């Protein structure tokens, strides 16, 4: 299973790695500027915690929950549906997020850590309860897996052909608390837990029904399509969510008190929640916003406005510059604490090895990719357009937050620091006549590489997604840097959807046009809900999300080793190899959100890099 590119509102991977989109409307709050200062540690730590109160959370701009059934098809697979909404009510079997670390959190998981024995895996439930008093049982997990087996290929947004659940058999609940399944081979246990079992959300027995009455999806896979159809139709009746006999059975820390289709939600604590962290707030509200500017207006108004936000966000354009992402400058919003949220991700843009523009043979040359990467000045983008709120992408594994997955080499930082001299030398030594400010052409086809013609120019079209200021600035900077080496990049700003439709899928696998060289949708890949950063979806030959059609036998072999070997050695070897092979152009990973937290609210920090929110940990304080 893998991750996919997306804007902030998309759930998995490749978030645009920036705060709040909708910049296409070009609304700025340039005139805004009350002042105040605070530090992350000041957030509500100075007062005495008190129970109760209502915390208001600003949803990302232009996004509202529109699906409550925690079995999201691609249409509904978004952060706002899952992490911001469904997870408050229905908990995944395994919870990922230990503070800022995107690793398994055994305490918050409904089952003990899985036990592997060769090809077999055993899951033991903790005996938590649904809000109707029935236990969260092994059968509830089987119910989910059966539904996946029945409809996942078309209706499960994280489905990957050949992945879960097609790689397991003999799934059975041996008791009310124990489940066993057989994998088609012995996988890397961390990978299987983090990328396969991580998809499961137990479903209560009461959901095993159709309009005509109870069904038997839990025991009979062939019954599941009808059950899915019924639950899907119920989920599309937005006005009936609150108080629904189906959706009111929850195992998460919250229950839905009210919801309207504009996106206003109110949650109250689930008093039957069995997990270790019970809600302290009396209510938790989510409020929608059309744009980040509208949200910022309300944030600035503070208590002057009728609807004060307790947890919101600052537009990147208004962010105080910083020298390091974890050091924050003066917060422009008084009474709030500014805390940058970074997602567990990498950022890159693909090169199309299958391009039919005539540039495919050039892209296949490692020296060309190295030259292009030397012209990507990640440090300047981070300190400039990103105002310091970013990390370099050092390879196929994220460099932030600190995880056991990043190799020692990766920890050393950007392996391709900006170096235009090296870029030009690489081209010159491989048969190209470099014309700074002009057009570099191939003068020695034998050295340029197979398929490259005499006189062929280094000229490429680079569509990029509009709506993210720093990406636009980064592209302009890269264009300028490339021009210095005689590489012509014709930038083409386009709507996000157009860029992803063009460049986010493997054109041969997806049977779409290959008539493109490069494409930058602005994000790369966020490792949610497949938290183990293996490369089988992104970089394995023939994978649907291997956008550019990169193929490399050694890379494939190394990836396959990461899937079956329990140690991190193969993962390190693979990422170090691929970081040098440059299958894509690595670009900085920008801040996901500049979170603003009202000072009287505690428990919000640290924020989860897996993008979960945990309002059950939040509490108000009195001074």
């Amino acid at each position, binding site marked *: 299973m*893998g991750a*996919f590119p*997306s804007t902030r509102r*998309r759930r998995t991977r*490749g978030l645009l790695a920036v705060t709040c989109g*909708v910049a296409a*409307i*070009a*609304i*700025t*709050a340039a*005139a*805004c500027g*009350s002042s105040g200062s605070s530090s992350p540690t000041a957030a509500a730590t100075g007062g005495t915690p008190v129970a109760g109160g209502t915390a208001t959370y600003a949803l990302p701009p232009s996004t509202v929950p*529109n*699906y409550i059934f925690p079995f999201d*098809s*691609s*249409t509904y697979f978004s952060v706002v549906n899952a992490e911001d909404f469904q997870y408050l009510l229905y908990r995944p079997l395994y919870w990922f997020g230990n503070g800022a670390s995107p690793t398994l959190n055994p305490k918050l998981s409904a089952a003990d850590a899985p036990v592997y024995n060769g090809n077999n895996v055993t899951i033991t439930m903790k005996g938590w309860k649904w809000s109707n008093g029935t236990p969260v049982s092994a059968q509830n997990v089987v119910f989910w897996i059966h539904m996946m087996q029945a409809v996942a*290929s*078309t209706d499960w*947004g994280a*489905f990957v*052909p050949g992945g879960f659940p097609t790689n397991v058999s003999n799934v059975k609940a041996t008791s009310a608390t124990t489940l066993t399944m057989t994998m088609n081979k012995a996988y890397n246990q961390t990978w299987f837990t983090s990328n396969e079992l991580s998809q499961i959300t137990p479903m209560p027995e009461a959901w095993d029904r159709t309009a005509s009455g109870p069904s038997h999806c839990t025991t009979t896979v062939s019954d599941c399509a009808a059950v899915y159809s019924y639950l899907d139709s119920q989920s*599309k009746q937005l006005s009936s969510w609150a108080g629904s006999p189906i959706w009111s059975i929850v195992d998460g820390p919250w229950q839905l008190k009210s919801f*309207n*289709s*504009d996106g*206003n939600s109110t949650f109250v604590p689930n008093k039957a929640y069995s997990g270790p962290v019970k809600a302290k707030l009396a209510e938790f509200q989510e409020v*929608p916003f*059309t*744009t980040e*500017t*509208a*949200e910022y*207006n*309300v944030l*600035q*108004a503070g208590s*002057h*406005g*009728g*609807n004060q936000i307790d947890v919101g966000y600052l537009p990147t354009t208004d962010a105080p510059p910083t020298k390091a992402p974890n050091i924050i400058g003066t917060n422009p919003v008084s009474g709030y604490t500014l805390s940058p949220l970074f997602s567990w991700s990498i950022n890159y843009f693909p090169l199309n090895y299958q391009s039919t523009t005539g540039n495919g043979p050039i892209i296949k040359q490692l020296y060309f990719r190295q030259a292009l990467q030397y012209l990507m000045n990640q440090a300047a983008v981070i300190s400039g357009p990103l105002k310091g709120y970013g990390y370099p992408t050092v390879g196929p594994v994220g460099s932030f937050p600190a995880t056991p997955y990043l190799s020692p080499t990766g920890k050393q930082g950007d392996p391709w620091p900006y170096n235009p001299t090296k870029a030009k030398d690489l081209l010159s030594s491989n048969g190209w006549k470099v014309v700074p400010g002009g057009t570099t052409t191939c003068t020695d086809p034998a050295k340029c590489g197979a398929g490259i013609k005499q006189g062929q120019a280094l000229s490429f079209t680079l569509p990029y997604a509009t709506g993210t200021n720093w990406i636009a600035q980064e592209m302009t900077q890269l264009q300028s840097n490339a021009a210095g080496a005689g590489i012509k990049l014709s930038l083409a700003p*386009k*709507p996000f*959807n*157009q860029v*992803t*439709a*063009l460049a*986010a*899928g*493997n054109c041969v*696998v*997806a*049977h*779409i046009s290959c008539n493109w060289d490069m494409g930058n949708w602005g994000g790369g890949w966020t490792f949610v809900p497949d938290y183990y950063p293996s490369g089988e*979806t992104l970089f394995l030959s023939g994978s*649907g*999300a291997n956008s550019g059609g990169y193929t490399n036998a050694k890379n494939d072999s190394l990836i396959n080793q990461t899937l079956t070997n329990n140690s991190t050695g193969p993962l390190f070897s693979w990422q170090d190899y691929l970081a040098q092979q440059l299958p894509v152009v690595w670009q900085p990973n920008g801040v996901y959100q500049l979170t603003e937290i009202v000072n009287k609210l505690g428990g919000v920090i640290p924020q989860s890099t897996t993008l979960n929110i945990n309002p059950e940990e939040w509490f108000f304080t009195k001074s």
Partner: protein
Amino acid sequence: MIGFLIRRILQAAVVVLIVTVIVFILLRAIPGNIAVAILGPAAYRNPAALAAFNAQYGFDKPWYSQYLLWLGHLLQGNLGFSFTLDQSVSSLLGQRLPKTIILVGISTIVALIIAVPVGLLQAVRRNKPVDYTFTGLSFLFYAAPTFFVGTVLILVFSVKLGWFGPEAPQGGIVNDFTDWRDLTLPVVTLALVTIALFSRYMRSSVLDNISEDYVRTARAKGASRQRVLWRHVMRNSLIPIATLLGLSIPGIFAGALITESVFNYPGMGYLFFQSAQKQDYPVLLGFIVVVAIATVVGSLLADVAYAVLDPRVRYA
């Protein structure tokens, strides 16, 4: 008059039909893949899901087949289903249209109430300080970008002074009437621009009429200046305003994207913007149908208003 109305209504139906054909073709010509736009790039991992989506919604058929299918549903009152907002288009329009009509409608009425006397005053006091002042203000507000006006109003009256809310009323339309403090700034933002426009037209129209023979005749007959202004000049000067109002009707239905965005008010304009970004074609088409109907109705109403305001106009 009745014959005229019947003819115009029939013409309107043809116009709306042609508009839908053109829009349908243009929407299909937008680059990109509808299924990927809706399902997200993740769907590339799963060609079966893409194929299922295309088959389910008829995107694997030629555009004319898709159009006829859509038209058939439209004639049955079914505007389709929003892929991205997970609601029927009728339901979405039902939620957003009243909010937009309230916001834009109130601002238009406010603008009219203020602009007509202001324009009249400017014409009467032509080239006097009061005329220069209102002319300057009109140019200022007409030239200023709406988002700038809205943001400044929020900063001054909400953030600094705390008199009004920084966002428009949230929730149902009932709140629009009860939360007047929240509705004030968006209405003022829209009204300022409209006042600037209407008052200029009104001033110009009054100046044209004030030098007409019938004014001199009325004055010669002994009618007071006030009576001539309010009973004769005013009525004739409102004719161009009636045209403007007629042309404003589509705007009242189409919404005000920037104002809605700045004031967090999810109306028709914002719905259209969202849907266009996500290639949510059923919503775009439903929106176009509503606005096209509003346009032809607005034009028709303007024609009828001519006849009411100007006895010389008679439609055969």
